[in-house]
């Protein structure tokens, strides 16, 4: 396998203008398949979730899954698409062992949803509108495993094994219009676009949206043209790009590769490229030739789908608040700065903070706990913060204990450890671990006397008005009380004792 020459990304950007296009396949999480009543379940024993329809046996009759149509309409609506009043299915004919019927039932000239758009917000807040050409219904293919050979790749394989459990799983394919004007932000936009699609279908509840399971899969089209030229260059289509990071890397790599090809004076070949996560490069797949002559024709075994306006409006009424709008609303409600909010989102604690505020915490208290104590512990435990097991009510209770002066922040952290260790509620842990703040002034005054005696020069400074020196005395007291004193009260008592105004 020869390694393609590439230009640096910066040089590629100086010379050329990238145009992108995406086909994202979303597997729906219906209970059954698109055209058969066999279960739509991931990870079962091979060829156990199939019946005669999925295996393409002669004389069978497919029947459309109503829930899958409704999910498709919801996706169309969430992408600001028009929903076709009438649409139909078509056969896409090709011979390949992942498709036992020798055709895939898809939609061709009449997709269920078309002419939409999605506003994509990049990390710095720039909003980029991606136009949606169409979203159509189809079925997934079976899973091939190539056996033998050295690499497990298809080249050099001795034979292939086929599991048809995935065959017939409902898919919605979302196709963008050509995306122009992204410039050097093309790789970033690619990642953000796929992330947005994944977030939307997850939020709609129509897909499990787990990329590692192939629920959301992206084919990325890239072409370059010299700056100022309107006509598009020749594109490549990179398949098998199945993580957000890979989408960004693949687009970046293809831009660099195209630029090197164009620089050499050669034409770019219109072809399928395969993404390799290990080397972060693409290699040539088959060239597009008559393998792409799919001879679509209307599926004679299925009748048209008519989406009445009443039905569409009923479905529209069930749509949840779009994720982007929800983020805007929450940020405004909580009064977080852009930076604070972005950190919260990136840390994956937005939902947890929302729940904690609903449980009675203030926005700033909820953020302090989640972004401080909890994110740190989650990182150590290598789990998502929300999976650590901290209930919103626990945070509210902990904060109340601190505000009431019963425990200080350092103790609160220990109490949280206790909660996570399953020792009980915060109040119970304070009791059990004997963590209450020493609020009786008697022992404090003793400790203060001792600390002042130990550091007479500091005491003298404070008497002389250098109040900022008080930290050393407070520190001594806290040490003597093993952290169980209320530092604020200690400070008050020291100033009182020395007769200095705070």
């Amino acid at each position: 396998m020869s390694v393609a020459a590439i230009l640096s990304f910066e040089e590629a950007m100086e010379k050329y203008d990238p145009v992108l296009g995406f086909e994202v396949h979303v597997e729906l999480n219906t209970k059954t398949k698109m055209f058969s009543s066999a279960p739509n379940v991931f990870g079962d024993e091979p060829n156990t979730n199939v019946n005669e329809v999925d295996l393409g046996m002669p004389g069978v009759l497919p029947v459309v899954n109503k829930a899958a149509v409704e999910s498709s309409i919801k996706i169309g609506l969430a992408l600001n698409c028009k929903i076709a009043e009438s649409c139909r299915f078509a056969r896409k004919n090709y011979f390949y062992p992942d498709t036992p019927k020798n055709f895939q039932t898809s939609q061709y000239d009449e997709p269920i949803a078309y002419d939409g758009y999605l506003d994509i917000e990049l990390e710095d807040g720039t909003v980029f509108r991606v136009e949606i050409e169409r979203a159509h219904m189809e079925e997934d293919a079976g899973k091939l495993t190539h056996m033998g050979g050295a690499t497990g790749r298809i080249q050099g394989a001795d034979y292939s094994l086929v599991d048809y459990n995935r065959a017939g799983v409902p898919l919605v394919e979302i196709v963008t219009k050509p995306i122009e004007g992204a410039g050097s932000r093309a790789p970033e936009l690619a990642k953000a676009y796929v992330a947005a699609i994944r977030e939307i279908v997850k939020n709609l509840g129509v897909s499990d949206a787990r990329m590692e399971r192939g629920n959301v899969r992206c084919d990325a089209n890239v072409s370059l043209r010299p700056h100022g030229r309107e006509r598009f260059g020749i594109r490549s289509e990179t398949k098998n790009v199945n993580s957000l990071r890979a989408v960004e890397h693949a687009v970046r790599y293809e831009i660099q590769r195209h630029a090197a090809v164009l620089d050499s004076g050669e034409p770019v070949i219109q072809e399928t490229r395969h993404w390799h996560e290990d080397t972060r490069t693409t290699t040539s797949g088959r060239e597009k030739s008559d393998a792409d002559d799919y001879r679509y024709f209307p599926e004679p075994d299925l009748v048209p789908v008519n989406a009445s306006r009443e039905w569409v409006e009923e479905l529209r009424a069930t749509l949840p608040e779009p994720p982007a709008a929800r983020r805007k609303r929450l940020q405004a409600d909580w009064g977080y700065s852009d930076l604070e909010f972005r950190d919260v989102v990136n840390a994956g604690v937005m939902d947890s903070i929302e729940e904690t505020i609903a449980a009675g915490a203030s926005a700033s208290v909820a953020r302090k706990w989640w972004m401080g104590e909890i994110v740190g512990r989650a990182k150590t435990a290598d789990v998502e913060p929300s999976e650590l097991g901290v209930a919103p009510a626990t945070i509210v209770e902990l904060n109340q204990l601190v505000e009431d002066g019963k425990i200080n922040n350092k103790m609160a952290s220990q109490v949280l450890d206790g909660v996570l260790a399953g020792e009980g509620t915060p109040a119970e842990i304070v009791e059990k671990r004997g963590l209450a703040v020493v609020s009786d002034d008697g022992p404090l005054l003793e400790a203060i006397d001792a600390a002042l005696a130990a550091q007479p020069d500091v005491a003298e400074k404070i008497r002389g008005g250098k109040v900022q020196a008080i930290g050393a005395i407070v520190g001594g007291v806290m040490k003597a009380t093993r952290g169980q004193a209320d530092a604020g009260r200690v400070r008050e008592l020291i100033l009182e004792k020395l007769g200095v105004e705070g």
Partner: protein
Amino acid sequence: MAAINRDDVAHLARLAHIEMSPEELDRMAGELAVIVDSVKSVSEAAGADVPATSHPIPLSNVFREDVVGHTFAAEQALSGAPDSFEGRFKVPAILDEE
């Protein structure tokens, strides 16, 4: 007469994975031309006001509720397979495509 030449037939035969002799290609080119002409005369009978028909019965929205039905056991699914291995269909290596 519609122009269906031998190359068109050879192309279709390849797409359909049908092996055809030179004689068969010649004969089929003539027969397909007649068929295409016949279809064309039907098209001419329909005016611009007649929508294309993909199904003879005026039905729409034939749906199934999303309820799990029957499945095969893997042995049943594989019972007609020329070859299988560990619960999966075994097929020859595919080298020329994806």
